[in-house]
């Protein structure tokens, strides 16, 4: 976990370090002079070697010091602490929405693969995976904000403004999770242990919700864990379309204004979130799967 976080920061730092642009031009703007640039370089420590720079950045990062914004000269942490909760709320609502809706859909399509419902779900999944988020967002804004006037098109003022963004964000994940759920459910329904359960007289409901579901959830948990990254990527788009002051929008704005410390911090924090989520998914998996749990207990898994 810790090496992964350091690695992530390293990769992002490296990308930004290799960037050909001159930061002094960004900071000084029209006031740029060779002498001024020199002072700035010294103050930011840009004259030191890459390794030195990176280590001092890492040390500061661990202490919660993400540097000073080039643009408005405020600590980056201040901007992050405003933006982060907004993204967190959006992502948590979206993940919950996606899981709550798609797992039952996946189960039903697996149990009754030839029903009309399954047909709809399949088409929905096909479209949901391929539909670009920003486009769906605009269509929903057109429908619910412009024509019906039910929901606000932008901002983060009240609970209503979170509805559209979370629908958009959860849509493609619903498609993915329900597909995964469906296939792993079909898989488990054909296993020998489900046959044993039927042979001992378990009713169809018990077969589906106890014997098959417990096993089918396992691969789905992994998939949900791996979707966190995609979800944050989607949040970048969603926040831009709906003008939500979150991490994604902060990042886009910083990129457009060449505010390197801000971009660096935003990307790193988002990646760390992904790392944490994949760890959580691993732990959940272990919790649900006694085979893995036993291995964890014995301390054989080092990761």
């Amino acid at each position, binding site marked *: 976990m810790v090496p992964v976080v350091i690695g992530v920061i390293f990769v992002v730092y490296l990308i930004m370090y290799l960037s050909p642009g001159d930061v002094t031009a960004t900071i000084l703007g029209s006031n740029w002079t060779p002498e001024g640039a020199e002072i700035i370089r010294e103050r930011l420590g840009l004259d030191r070697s890459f390794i030195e720079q990176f280590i001092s950045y890492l040390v500061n990062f661990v202490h919660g010091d993400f540097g000073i914004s080039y643009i408005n000269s405020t600590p980056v942490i201040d901007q992050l602490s405003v933006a982060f909760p907004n993204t967190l709320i959006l992502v948590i609502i979206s993940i919950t929405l996606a899981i709550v809706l798609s797992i039952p859909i996946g189960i039903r399509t697996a149990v009754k693969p030839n029903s009309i419902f399954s047909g709809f779900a399949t088409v929905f999944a096909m479209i949901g995976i391929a539909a670009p988020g920003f486009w769906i967002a605009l269509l929903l804004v057109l429908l619910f904000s412009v024509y019906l006037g039910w929901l606000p098109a932008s901002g983060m003022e009240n609970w209503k403004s979170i509805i559209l963004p979370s629908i958009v964000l959860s849509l493609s994940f619903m498609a993915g999770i329900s597909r995964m759920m469906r296939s792993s459910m079909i898989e488990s329904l054909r*296993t*020998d*242990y*489900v*046959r*044993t*359960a*039927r*042979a*001992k*007289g*378990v*009713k*169809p409901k018990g077969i589906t919700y*106890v*014997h098959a579901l*417990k*096993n089918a959830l*396992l691969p789905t948990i992994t998939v949900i864990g791996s979707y966190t990254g995609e979800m944050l990527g989607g949040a970048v788009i969603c926040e831009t379309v709906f003008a939500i002051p979150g991490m994604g929008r902060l990042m886009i704005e910083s990129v457009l204004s060449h505010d390197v410390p801000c971009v660096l911090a935003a990307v790193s924090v988002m990646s760390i979130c992904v790392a944490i989520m994949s760890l959580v998914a691993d732990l959940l998996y272990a919790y*649900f*799967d*006694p*085979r893995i749990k*036993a291995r964890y207990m014995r301390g054989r898994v080092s990761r």
Partner: protein
Amino acid sequence: MNENEKKNPLLKIENLHVHFVSKAETVKAINGLDLEVYPGETLGLVGETGAGKTTTGLTILNMVPKPQGRIVEGKVTLDEMDILSKSESEMSDIRGDVVSMIFQDPMTSLNPVITVGDQIAEVFRLHRKIDKKEALEQAEEMLEMVGIPRVRANEYPHQFSGGMKQRVLIALGLACTPKLLIADEPTTALDVTIQAQVLELMQRLKKRLDMAMLMITHDLGIVAEVCDRVAVMYAGTVVESGSLVDIFDHKRHPYTEGLFNSLPNIKNRDRDLIPIKGQMPNPADLPTGCPFHPRCEYATERCAQEEPELHWFSETHCAKCWLYENLQEDKSMLHSKDYGESKGGTQA
């Protein structure tokens, strides 16, 4: 045997036909199967892989996989109930209570995420309607009965060896003392030493709980050890059935003969093994007439055209073969050395 005659059969399968239908082909797994199991007896159902043994077992539980599997024709009567007319929900009350089945592969037949105790306790909760604690108590007793310490009830299947898992499955099958236990190759996946233990256990419990058993196997050794009667299956139908003595010492059907000839004999190691020539017919494309005729040494024109009828040699022994239709005139046709000995039985 005579006792059984007086009783009504516990299980009676009449003229069963089961097909598996897919877009490409129709696999005829069971073709006109007749079978009876009497209370308290062990019937061995013998045949090669693909003969339809497992499908027979599943049909008794009305668990032929849908939608491909179709019961085209036939009647299954179990404990005076018409099994094939029951709904899924009615069936689930019968399964595990009146009849239960032990499957071939113990490694994959237990749910990996539920404790062994809970899996057995579930049977009690389903059929005895008792609370969770009591059910677990009884599950632990079942475990003890099959020789597993009760403390292991809250362990998961992956913590058990193959033989232990099969014991668990036996405990699961016997939990509600069913009248009929179907055991589908219960020892095939196990080591030889474990096989003997498991068989011995099943024998003992069967006697103790006084139930009937349908032992599905391809191993004639197991049959000799545990069965009272034997039914030999080929291409989805019973070609010969009789008591253990009938089949082992007075076999009549050329297929049964071939089956025995392909076994090594420890008393007579000089004897060559005589494998049955050819292969099992493709169940999607069965030959006309007797399904065995392409591989049969004694096959005649008639065998290729007409399906043979059941011929009774005694009250217990019968075979489906044209050879015996004109038995009196044509004794020389079957060259089996056993033939002479079984003469007496034929007359009866």
